[in-house]
Every structure is written in structure tokens, then in C-alpha cells.
């Protein structure tokens, strides 16, 4: 085994950091918590870079195919000789890529937060939570079995909850954190049932064995799970759809996306880390992890993934065009980009060059992590400067914040898919994969990429142009160097990450993919993106009434997009009106009257009886003596007359 145990240190260092900062942070490290957190994460980042180098260049390949390597495995809970929950580390290309992405983005966010969260009274707690999140996310990507991933999945959910609700004095933040937790928890219920179904039929929880048992045609496990069915759908499809439901909840896919925009109540660096680059792609990661099962054994479930992804991408892009809170625009754009990754997985096949979609999805995950966290950190800088999330309070900031401006522009170009920025390369792969297998999805994706360019540049112009610069009274400069440096590093990556030879490293079956997207294919998407940018330039480069006029003309469509297509209202209607009235109230009535009533009745009877007999406990010696004599006399009579 060429992979030494230092891989285990990658998640354990942040865990140790969490314990130290969580237990002693407020007392001893209130000033130095940021430095401690950042340094420990730096160590993790270096270790994961070493791991990546070791895996991709030295030891990961055998016979030209990247292997899944189990670094270590510890049997934790043994249920039966064949079924146990293990704790282990599994290394394969996507794990290694996720390790690098998570530690790197997390490091940038730690660094950025040094300036952004300065003066925060619970500074140490904040870094403790960040470390907890990083630990859980790293544990999630390293998990070697599906139950372990579920544990870390929930841990990630908890740390997301803690960080969204970090400003717990604000009622909106509390509501948002609760919403995020409940919605994702609801989705995780599906995930758990999916795990149970999968493990019930395949008698294992280990990813490697599970995938092997459920993909080999003719394996008894596959036949069993396929022949069992419920409501006309086979157990395998149910299981995979339920697992996907968990993934869709974490990844904010329609219709479980409602928590993500609200999650922007958390501190902005947190949004950059959790709700843009790492946690929200956990769903994509999960589908990618089980991809062989999806692709080889159950194309129907994969179809669902495709259409959910494509619809979410399109749906979120439309909403993003109308929002006025910059973080919400970015949130919807995240949802849209994750939709891209999802449908890219959906249109992919398992082996060889047909696995383009899988590779494109992972590639997009990789580039998206950089440019989206850059966008969020840039937005964080802007919010730090103007103390507002609303577009109308911004405008004309390009002179005041030159570095942020340039970095933000690079990120916008990257997400819009303009060559040679990183988003272009990954998006091309995805579009190509969609073009080859599903023209409808391709059309949606193409239109969405035009929309993406439009709304990103609407955002960009509204922040940095649109108004003269002197409308702002600069309280302070652009921010400390710890805030600028991460922006610059991420900007460089957003520029060049597209040149990473991901195709050589990551594919569904481990073998490199050689297909190149032809130049001619790229013309249409790039032209659409440029069109979107130009349209946004026309509308938003200076403040004018044209956007307002267009909005009035679109009328109902604009209004419903502004209200996020009333999905929140629909949820409220379903939960408050239907669930509360039809299930909650009767259940409460039953609980109050029947359950409590029965117990109250018992208590009343007991009380009544004791009231009746407590007089006998009179405290008078002679009464007791009388009872005693009465008892003896009674016994004597009983003996005389009944003892024959």
C-alpha cells in the first residue's frame, strides 16, 4: 500500500482545531483563533496537495486506469458476519479532487475571514465552526462506505446550520438556519431509506462491494433488487431515487432548493465556502460516487437526475435575473450551476469516451468551486464596504475597489463561459455531452448559459458601474491584505483552472478521456454568452429606465420570477394550511385529549382514592392500636371459622 496514513490527518487536523477552539477558544484564543485555524488548514491543504500529487502522478494508476484505493478500514459496528458499518478511507480521482478543492477553498475562506470577521465577539467560535465544517466535508469525501458518508453528511448539515445561524441575534438568520436544516433533513430521510434499501438487497454498505454487486449483470443481488418492486417501480430505482433525493436536498435541486437563498443570512465567507463551493456539491459528489450503479444498472433513475438538474439550472437562472440582493443572485446562480453538474452526470454513460458528461460534471465542480467562491468573497468585500446586500445601495464601486473589481470581473467571465476563463472549458464539456445524448437538455443548457451571462453581468454592472463613484462615502479602504490575497489567488485559479488536464485524471471508469470539443461547437454557446453580456451592458451599465420598462412589459412573468415563482409560498401553504390543519391539529387534539386525558384520568382516580383513605393515617397512636386489634381479631375469626 503506497498511500501512507497521513491522508487520515487531512480531516483530523481541522477536527483537533475544532475541539481546541471550541473548548478553549473564547478564553485563551479570542485573538489568535483565526491564525490557528488558518495555519492548521494550511497543513491540511499541503497534505492534500501531496496526496493529489502522489495519487495522480505516482501511485494511483495501474494498467492505465485510476484505481479505487482503500487506505484503511476499521470495522466499527458489526451487525452480522456479512454486514458491518466501517470507518475507512477510500481514495479515487474524485475524492482526491474534492480534497484539494475543499481544503483549498476552505483555506481561502479562513484567510478572508481574518479581515472580514475582525472584531466579531465570537471570533473563535466562528473559526471553530469553520473547522468543524471542514472536517465533516473532508470526512464526507473520504468515506469508504455509504453509512459513513451519511454520518458526515449529517455533520455537514449541522455545521451548515450553525454557521447560517451564526448571527443568532437576527431572527431572519435563525429562521434561515432552521429552514436549511429542516429541508435538508427532510431530504436526508429519503437518503437514509435509500441506504437501507440498497444495503438490504446488496448485504453490504461498502462502496466498492456495493457497486460491484449492483452492476455485474447476473449477480444474484442485482437480480433480487431488480425483481422486487413497489408501485410498479423496481426497488433499485426507488433506492437510487431516494438517495438522489438526499443529494438533491443538499445540492438545492428543485423542488428542495428553497433553503439555499435563505442560507445567505450567514456570514458571506461561509456562503462562499459552504453554499457555493463545497457542501452544496455534496449531492453531485454522491451521485458521482454511485455513478456506476446509476449508469450501468438503472438508466431510468439517471433520467430523473438529468431532468431535475436541467430544470433546476434553467429555473434558478430565471429567478437570478430578477433578484436584487447580490448574495441571493449568487445563490440562485449556484443552484443553476449545480443543475449543470447534475444533468451532466445524467447524460453521461459509464465507459470510455461516452463518459464525457461525468468528466465534465467533475470538471465543472472543480472550476465552479474557484470562481463561485471568488464571486462570494468578492461580494463579501463589497458588503464589507457598503454594509448592505442590496444592489441599489451599490454602483460605481470600480474606482473604490479596483482589486475586487478585477477579480469579480474575471469570475463573471469565467461563469459566463468566455474563453479562456475556466468556466468555458468545463461548460463546453457539459454542453458537448448533452448535445451527444439529449438535445432537449442541450437546448435548455444553451439557453441557460446565455441567461447566466446576462444575470452575472447585470450583477457586475449594478455593483461596479451604473452610478458615479462619489455616491459612496468610503469609511475604509477595500479591506485588509488578508481579504485581498485570497481574491487574487482565486482569480488566478478562475483564470487558469480550465487548463487543468482533468480529462486525463477523472472519468467514470478511471481511464483517461481523449475527446476534444471541436472549436466550431463552441461558437454557439460563446456567442450566446456574449449576447447575454451585451444585453446586460445595454441595460445596466448606466442607470436608466429601460430595465424597468422591460420588467413592466414582461408583467406577470417578471413578477412571479421576482417572487421566486411562489415556491416558498407553496411550501408554506402545504405545510401550514394542509399539513398543520389536517395532520398537526388532529394529532395535537389526540395528544391533548386522549393521551394526556388518559394519564390525567389515572392521576385523578389515584388522587380521589388516596383522599378517601388518607384519614386512616391520623397520627393518633390509639387509632393505630385499634386497627391492629381489629386486624388481629379479624384474623382470629378467620382462623376459627375458615381454617377447617
Amino acid at each position, binding site marked *: 500500500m503506497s498511500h501512507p496514513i497521513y491522508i487520515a490527518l487531512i480531516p483530523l487536523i481541522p477536527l483537533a482545531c475544532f475541539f481546541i477552539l471550541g473548548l478553549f477558544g473564547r478564553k485563551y484564543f479570542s485573538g489568535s483563533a483565526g491564525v490557528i485555524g488558518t495555519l492548521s488548514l494550511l497543513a491540511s491543504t499541503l497534505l492534500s496537495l501531496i496526496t493529489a500529487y502522489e495519487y495522480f502522478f505516482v501511485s494511483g494508476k495501474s494498467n492505465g486506469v485510476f484505481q479505487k484505493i482503500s487506505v484503511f478500514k476499521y470495522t466499527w459496528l458489526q451487525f452480522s458476519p456479512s454486514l458491518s458499518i466501517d470507518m475507512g478511507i477510500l481514495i479515487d480521482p474524485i475524492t482526491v479532487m474534492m480534497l484539494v478543492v475543499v481544503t483549498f477553498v476552505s483555506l481561502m475562506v479562513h484567510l478572508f475571514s481574518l479581515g472580514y470577521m475582525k472584531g466579531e465577539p465570537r471570533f473563535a467560535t466562528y473559526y471553530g465552526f469553520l473547522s468543524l465544517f471542514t472536517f465533516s466535508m473532508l470526512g464526507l469525501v473520504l468515506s469508504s462506505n455509504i453509512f459513513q458518508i451519511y454520518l458526515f453528511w449529517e455533520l455537514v448539515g449541522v455545521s451548515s446550520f450553525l454557521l447560517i445561524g451564526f448571527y443568532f441575534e437576527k431572527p431572519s438568520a435563525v429562521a434561515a438556519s432552521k429552514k436549511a436544516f429542516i429541508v435538508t433533513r427532510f431530504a436526508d430521510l429519503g437518503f437514509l431509506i435509500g441506504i437501507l434499501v440498497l444495503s438490504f438487497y446488496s448485504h453490504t454498505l461498502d462502496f466498492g462491494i456495493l457497486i460491484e454487486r449492483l452492476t455485474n449483470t447476473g449477480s444474484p443481488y442485482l437480480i433480487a433488487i431488480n425483481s422486487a418492486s413497489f408501485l410498479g417501480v423496481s426497488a433499485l430505482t426507488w433506492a437510487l431515487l431516494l438517495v438522489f433525493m438526499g443529494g438533491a436536498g443538499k445540492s438545492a435541486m428543485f423542488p428542495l432548493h428553497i433553503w439555499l437563498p435563505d442560507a445567505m443570512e450567514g456570514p458571506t465567507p461561509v456562503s462562499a465556502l459552504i453554499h457555493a463551493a463545497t457542501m452544496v456539491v455534496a449531492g453531485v459528489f454522491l451521485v458521482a460516487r454511485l455513478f456506476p450503479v446509476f449508469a450501468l444498472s438503472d438508466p431510468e433513475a439517471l433520467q430523473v437526475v438529468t431532468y431535475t438538474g436541467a430544470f433546476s439550472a434553467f429555473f434558478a437562472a430565471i429567478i437570478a435575473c430578477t433578484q436584487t440582493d447580490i448574495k441571493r443572485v449568487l445563490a440562485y446562480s449556484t443552484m443553476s450551476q449545480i443543475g449543470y453538474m447534475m444533468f451532466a452526470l445524467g447524460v453521461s454513460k459509464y465507459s470510455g469516451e461516452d463518459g464525457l458528461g461525468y468528466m465534465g460534471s467533475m470538471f465543472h465542480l472543480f472550476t465552479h468551486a474557484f470562481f463561485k467562491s471568488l464571486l462570494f468573497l468578492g461580494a463579501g468585500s463589497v458588503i464589507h464596504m457598503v454594509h448592505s446586500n442590496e444592489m441599489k445601495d451599490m454602483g460605481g464601486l470600480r474606482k473604490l475597489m479596483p482589486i475586487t473589481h478585477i477579480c469579480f470581473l474575471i469570475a463573471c467571465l469565467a461563469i459566463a463561459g468566455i474563453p479562456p476563463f475556466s468556466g468555458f472549458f468545463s461548460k463546453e464539456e457539459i454542453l458537448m455531452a448533452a448535445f451527444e445524448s439529449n438535445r432537449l437538455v442541450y437546448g435548455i443548457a444553451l439557453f441557460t448559459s446565455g441567461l447566466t451571462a446576462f444575470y452575472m453581468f447585470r450583477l457586475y454592472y449594478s455593483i461596479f458601474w451604473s452610478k458615479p463613484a462619489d455616491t459612496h462615502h468610503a469609511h475604509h479602504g477595500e479591506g485588509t491584505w488578508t481579504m485581498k490575497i485570497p481574491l487574487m489567488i482565486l482569480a488566478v485559479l478562475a483564470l487558469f483552472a480550465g487548463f487543468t488536464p482533468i480529462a486525463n485524471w477523472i472519468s467514470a471508469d478511471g481511464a483517461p478521456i481523449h475527446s476534444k470539443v471541436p472549436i466550431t461547437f463552441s461558437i454557439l454557446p460563446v456567442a450566446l454568452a456574449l449576447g447575454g453580456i451585451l444585453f446586460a451592458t445595454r441595460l445596466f451599465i448606466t442607470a436608466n429606465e429601460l430595465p424597468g420598462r422591460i420588467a413592466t412589459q414582461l408583467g406577470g412573468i417578471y413578477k412571479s420570477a421576482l417572487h421566486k415563482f411562489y415556491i416558498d409560498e407553496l411550501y408554506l401553504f402545504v405545510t401550514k394550511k394542509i399539513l398543520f390543519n389536517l395532520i398537526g391539529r388532529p394529532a395535537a387534539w389526540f395528544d391533548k385529549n386522549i393521551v394526556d386525558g388518559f394519564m390525567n384520568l389515572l392521576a385523578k382516580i389515584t388522587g380521589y382514592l388516596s383522599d378517601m383513605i*388518607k384519614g386512616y*393515617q391520623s*397520627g393518633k397512636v*390509639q387509632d393505630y392500636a*385499634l386497627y391492629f386489634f381489629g386486624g388481629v381479631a379479624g384474623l382470629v375469626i378467620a382462623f376459627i371459622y375458615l381454617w377447617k
Partner: protein
Amino acid sequence: MNEIPLNQILFLSIGLFFIGAYGLFTRRNMITMLMSIELMLNSVNINFVAFNKYLYPDKLDGVFFSIFVITIAAAEAAVAIAIIINLYRSHHSIDVEDAGEMKY
């Protein structure tokens, strides 16, 4: 010399016993209650001795038993008087009705 018939002795002892019981339940003074208990014990002693004499004249079991009862009664009287003294110290009274705290 005519022997006293057994049932007359039993009448005596029943009389003593119920006088004692009546005293125990009606008197509130603890000394009097103690005296009532002694009366009841003595009625039992009379029974023992009488039955011993009339049923098993050649044995002494009943007599022994009554001596035991007398001994126990002496000990019991000592304990009871100690209790009464303590009660008097804490309540300044030897009326049982005044010591009624141990109730519901």
C-alpha cells in the same frame, strides 16, 4: 377445699383483658395506657397459669411462659416510660393527642 372452676377464672381474665383494652383505647394519658397494657398482659398470665393447672397439671410450661411474660412486661414498661419521658421533654405533655404530627 373446693377448687375454683376454670370458667370462673376465664371470666376473670376476659374481664381484665377488656378492661385493659377499654383503658388503652379511651385514656389519653400515656401512663394510664401503659397501666392498661399491664392489665391485658396480666389477664394473659392468668390464662396461662389456669390452663396449665387444669389441662396439664404435671407440667410447668404455662408457668414458665407467664414468668417470661412478666419479664418482658418489665422491660416493656422501662422502654415505654423512657418514651414517655422523652415525649414529655419535647411536648411538655404526656397526652397522646398532643403528639399527632406523624399524619398525612
